[in-house]
C-alpha cells in the first residue's frame, strides 16, 4: 500500500481515535481491501490474508490497524523495521515456518486491541493501574499489596480474532471432495 495510505491511516489513528474508527467503518470495504491486498501481495502472507477474510474483524480492521502502532511516529518506525525485515526475508527466503509474530509486533497488536476496545475492557484491568498502589499500601500496613500487576494479554483468549485460527482453536476442515 502507498506511503500516503499509511500516512492517512496513521494520522487518523493518532489524532482522533474515535473518528478514526468511523473512517474505517464508513469506507471500510475499499480502504481495508486496499491495505490488506498490499500485504497479501506477498504469497507468504496469503494464509493470514485468507484468515483475516474469514475473521470477525474483516469489516472493521485491516492489517495495519492491528500490526502498526496507532500513533504516527512509532508507526513509521515499525513499518520501516518490518518493511525491511519482510522484504529481506522474503527475497532471501531465510525465515522460519510457520511464520510467527515477533515479540515487538505482538506488543503492537496487543496495544491495537486496547486502542479500539479501551472502554469495554477497562473494568477487567481494575486493580492493575499503578495509580492505586500507594493509597492501598498505606491502608493495609499488615499485608503487602500486589505490586502493579501486568495487564492480561487479550490474545490469550481471543487469539482468533485477527485470523480465523484452525485447530486447536477451530473446527477442522471437513472437505467432502477428495483428490
Amino acid at each position: 500500500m502507498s506511503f500516503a495510505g499509511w500516512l492517512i491511516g496513521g494520522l487518523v489513528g493518532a489524532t482522533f481515535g474515535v473518528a478514526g474508527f468511523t473512517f474505517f467503518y464508513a469506507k471500510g470495504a475499499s480502504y481495508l481491501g486496499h491495505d490488506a491486498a498490499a500485504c497479501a501481495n506477498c504469497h507468504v502472507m496469503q494464509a493470514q490474508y485468507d484468515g483475516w477474510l474469514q475473521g470477525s474483524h474483516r469489516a472493521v480492521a485491516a492489517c495495519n490497524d492491528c500490526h502498526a502502532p496507532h500513533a504516527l511516529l512509532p508507526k513509521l518506525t515499525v513499518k520501516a523495521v518490518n518493511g525491511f525485515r519482510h522484504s529481506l526475508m522474503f527475497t532471501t527466503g531465510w525465515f522460519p515456518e510457520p511464520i510467527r509474530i515477533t515479540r515487538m509486533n505482538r506488543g503492537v497488536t496487543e496495544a491495537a486491541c486496547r486502542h479500539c476496545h479501551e472502554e469495554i475492557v477497562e473494568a477487567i484491568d481494575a486493580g492493575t493501574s499503578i495509580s492505586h498502589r500507594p493509597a492501598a499500601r498505606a491502608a493495609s500496613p499488615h499485608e503487602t499489596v500486589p505490586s502493579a500487576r501486568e495487564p492480561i494479554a487479550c490474545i490469550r483468549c481471543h487469539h482468533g480474532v485477527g485470523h480465523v485460527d484452525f485447530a486447536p482453536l477451530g473446527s477442522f476442515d471437513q472437505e467432502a471432495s477428495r483428490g
Partner: protein
Amino acid sequence: VNIFERKQEAKNPFYRVVELTEETEDPAVWGKNFPMQYDGYRRTVDQVRTRFGGSEAVPRTPTKADPRAVVAQSRLAEDPRLKRMWAGYAFSVDFREERGHAFMLQDQMFTERQHAAKQPGTCLHCHASMVVPYRRAGGGDLVKGFEKLNPLPYEEARKGVKHPVACIDCHDPQSMALRVTRPGFMEGMRVFKASQGIQNYDVNAMATRQEMRSYVCGQCHVEYYFKGPEKRLTYPWHLGLQVERITAYYDSVGHKDWTHAETGAPVLKAQHPEFEMWSQGIHARSGVACADCHMPYTRVGAMKISDHHVQSPLLNISRACQTCHRWPEEELKARAEANQERVHSMRNEAMDALLDLLDDLKSAKAAGDTLKAFREAQQFQRRAQFYLDFVEAENSSGFHAPQEALRILGQSIDLSRRGQLALRPMRAERGGR
C-alpha cells in the same frame, strides 16, 4: 455493532459511591461500588446439577439443631462404599456434594460431622470471611489472629464471624487488586517454593496477576491437615504438590488422620485437592487460571466483567471454554465428560480393589495372621486409600488433570491388590499344601 453508544455507557466503569476500607466486611456495601460483580456473587445460591458436578437442591424439614431447609445430595447415599473407606471417621457420618459459596458457612456449621467429632476454630479459615475476624483477634495482625482462633472450639471461634467468603477476602479495598489473605496458603506456598529452591516466597509481593487468578482459589481448594495441639492449618506441600510427595511428607512427620475402624490401619483423608490436581494438568501448564473457567469474563452492557457467579464451567460453556476452544458447546461438554467418565470408571475399579483389601484385612485379623504381613498390608491400605481419595475428593472428577488422575488411580489399584497379596502367601511360600 455501534461502538459509540457502548463508549458512552462505558464512561468510567467505577462509580465510587462509598469508600471501602479494611473494615468494610459486608459485601452489600462493596456492591454499591460494583453492583454487577455483587449480583453475580449473590447468584452462588443457585443449585444446578451437571453430569458429575454442580449440586442438587434436596429439601429437608428444618430442625432446631439444623435449620437448613435445603441441602445438597448425600454422596454417602450415592456410593455407600465410601462409608467403609472412611469407617471410624466423621466423614462416614455425613458427606455431601459441595455447592455454591453462599452456603459455605451454614454447611460447615450444620454438617453432622460437627457432632461426630469436636471441631476446632481452624475450620473457619476456608468457610467464612475471615479478614476482619482474624485481624480483630490478632490485634490488627492477621496471622496472630489466625493462631489465636485455630485452637478454640469451633462454636467459640465462630462468634463474630458474619459472612461466607466475601469481597475483602480476595480484593484490596483500595485498588481492587487481587490479594491472598489466608495464612494457610501463604505458608503453604512458602514451603512449596522453598522445596523448589526459592526462599522466603511472598505470594502477595511476588505472584503475577495471572497466578493470582488461581491463587485466590488455592487459598481454600487444597489438601490440608491440622498440625499439633495448636491445630495449626497446614498445607502438606513441603516436598511438592504431587500425591507421592504429599504422602512422603505425611509419612515423614508420622501423621495419620484417624485409625481405620475395620482394620486398625493409620489412615489419611484427602480433601478437595483442586489446586494440586490442576497444577499437574495441561491447562495449568498452558497458563489457564481457575478464574478463566470459573469466573469467565461476561459482557454487561458496554462493559466486560468477571462473572462472580462462581460455578461449574459446564453450566456456562460459551464463556468458560469457547473463547479458547472453537468447538460447539455440545462437543466441548462431551469432551469434558469423556475425560470425567474415564476417570470415574477407573475410580470405581480402584474402590472395588480397596474394599477387597478391607475384606482380606478383616478376615486376616479374624484368623490372627502373622503381625508382619498384617502390618505390611495396613501400610498398603494407607497409601492405596489416600491415592484413591485424592482423586475421589478432587471435585472436577478428573477434568483438571485427566492423565494425572488416571495415573494415580492405577497406582491405587496396584497398592490395594499388593496389600491383598501380602496376606496371601503362595502355597510354596506357605510350605507344601
